[in-house]
């Protein structure tokens, strides 16, 4: 089945529990919020109490961390059933997860482990993506993960791998520019080469986030402000691309909400006018 790509919905923020009250009280100028899908696999209580109020006021996007689409063991249909139930309840604009494996059999690492960039991985992912999308009856957008190693087995670059996957399946990507930067530093490649190589039609969403720099390597911790280099990569990207849904992602060391809003405004200001919601509408 062919699926339509999501439309441009503007600039969003990751919805985290510590900001629930403030969002409801102040109703900030955010175009949409992204939730972590698995946090809402629970039946009720505070998470749903707040989400149901926020989703009355803002569109919601769902972002998963545990699908493990690249895993070579059987597709976890129990997980997919829970995801589908949550999708039905949330009615998100679109859903995404990561291009990686995180579990194998009944072991779950709770990490985003990179795939080798090989023909075998491509074949495997093409098959899995079809199964998942058919089950969910909607497209699944895949995020590039940050990595700290490259495999001996890899036969192509990450961007060549993603491009090939897009060409074979028409799947779209959540391009995490911070992840591109982290991997570029850890593997000594030019992040602009990655971004420029990605087909425009393959990019459905952008994540902007921070990382921790350890000198010899950097780790994608999502607990720091977005660095200047990542802002510059985003600015360059925005100047040369049509509007892409863009989000500020923060997962730890949470700052005051106004600091995230300030980053959101910075993203808006770096994008050309054609990326602004009112211009686009």
């Amino acid at each position, binding site marked *: 089945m062919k699926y339509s790509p999501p439309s441009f919905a503007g600039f969003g923020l990751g919805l985290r529990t510590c900001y629930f009250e403030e969002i409801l009280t102040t109703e900030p100028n955010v175009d949409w919020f992204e939730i972590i899908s698995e946090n809402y696999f629970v039946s*009720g209580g505070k998470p*749903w109490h707040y989400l149901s109020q926020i989703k009355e006021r803002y569109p919601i996007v769902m972002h998963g961390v545990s699908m493990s689409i690249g895993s070579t063991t059987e597709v976890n249909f129990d997980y997919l059933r829970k995801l589908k139930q949550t999708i039905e309840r949330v009615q998100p604009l679109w859903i995404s997860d990561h291009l990686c494996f995180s579990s194998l059999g009944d072991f779950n690492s709770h990490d985003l482990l990179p795939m080798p960039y090989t023909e075998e991985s491509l074949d495997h992912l093409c098959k899995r993506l079809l199964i998942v999308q058919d089950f969910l009856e909607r497209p699944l957008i895949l995020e590039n993960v940050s990595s700290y*190693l490259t495999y*001996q087995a890899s036969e192509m670059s990450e961007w060549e791998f993603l491009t090939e996957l897009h060409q074979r399946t028409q799947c779209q990507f959540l391009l995490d520019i911070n992840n591109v930067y982290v991997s570029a530093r850890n593997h000594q490649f030019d992040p602009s080469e990655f971004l420029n190589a990605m087909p425009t039609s393959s990019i459905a969403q952008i994540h902007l986030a921070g990382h921790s720099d350890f000198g010899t390597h950097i780790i994608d911790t999502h607990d720091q402000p977005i660095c200047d280099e990542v802002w510059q990569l985003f600015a360059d990207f925005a100047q040369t691309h049509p509007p892409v849904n863009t989000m500020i992602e923060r997962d730890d060391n949470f700052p005051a909400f106004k600091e995230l809003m300030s980053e959101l405004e910075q993203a808006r200001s770096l994008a050309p006018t054609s990326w602004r919601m009112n211009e686009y509408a």
Partner: protein
Amino acid sequence: MSTLERLQHDFVAMLQGKNADFAQHIAQQKGLSCEQRSEIYQNAYQIRLKKVLEQDHEMLGLYLGDELFDSMVETYLSTYPSKSASLREFGERLPQLLREQSPFKEHGILSEMAQFERLLLHAFDAADGPVLELTDLQSIEQASWPNIILKLHDSVHLLTCQFSAVESWQALKNDSSPPAPELHTHRHWLIARAPDKRTGFYPISECHFQCLTSIKQGLPFGFVCEAAAGVAGDQQQGTIEVMQLLQQGIELGWFLKTSVT
């Protein structure tokens, strides 16, 4: 086993400290060695899951102290690696580990404190549902009362402690010293989410515990009253106890509306 299957199998084994050969899959690059690159993933795996247990079992961590807590995490990770897609469920078997493995099993309060913290988590995000109100009971005809079946809200959990687990948890939460772990007699607790979504815990008497156990078993109201009378010593006192329980439970949202209609 295909090349991809072998690689993923070796990666997972490396994370669990069972495969020192994983580095052979990694391409040599400038900067870090292959071993250092695999260690980043191994450390992240351990740190992430340790953090989950620290967050879910904050007071247990304070009670144990850093050294014993770290030892517990290490034992738990190797005994019960995560099998769930949700981190929320990772610590589900911690009370069992503390009950079964030395040196923790020699201190029964540890398992009880872990169980108490698990129940707080369960109550936090249990299913919502319309709660029973006094007006629902007023519409029941007198002759029907013995046969009505009350149903507990999904967030309601019962816990019986042989040790001062809850009192110690409370003391640590208030930055006070925990009491001696031994109790003269066991104590019953009810953990539930109140209508304002706050999770609370309440000491309950032996009589109320028996009533709630009967309700949990799906027994009709007549049996609940008999259970109360059995503990209270006579029927009249038992009825008073049941009415007190109903009043408190309705105020705090312990019963579901669907239970009597």
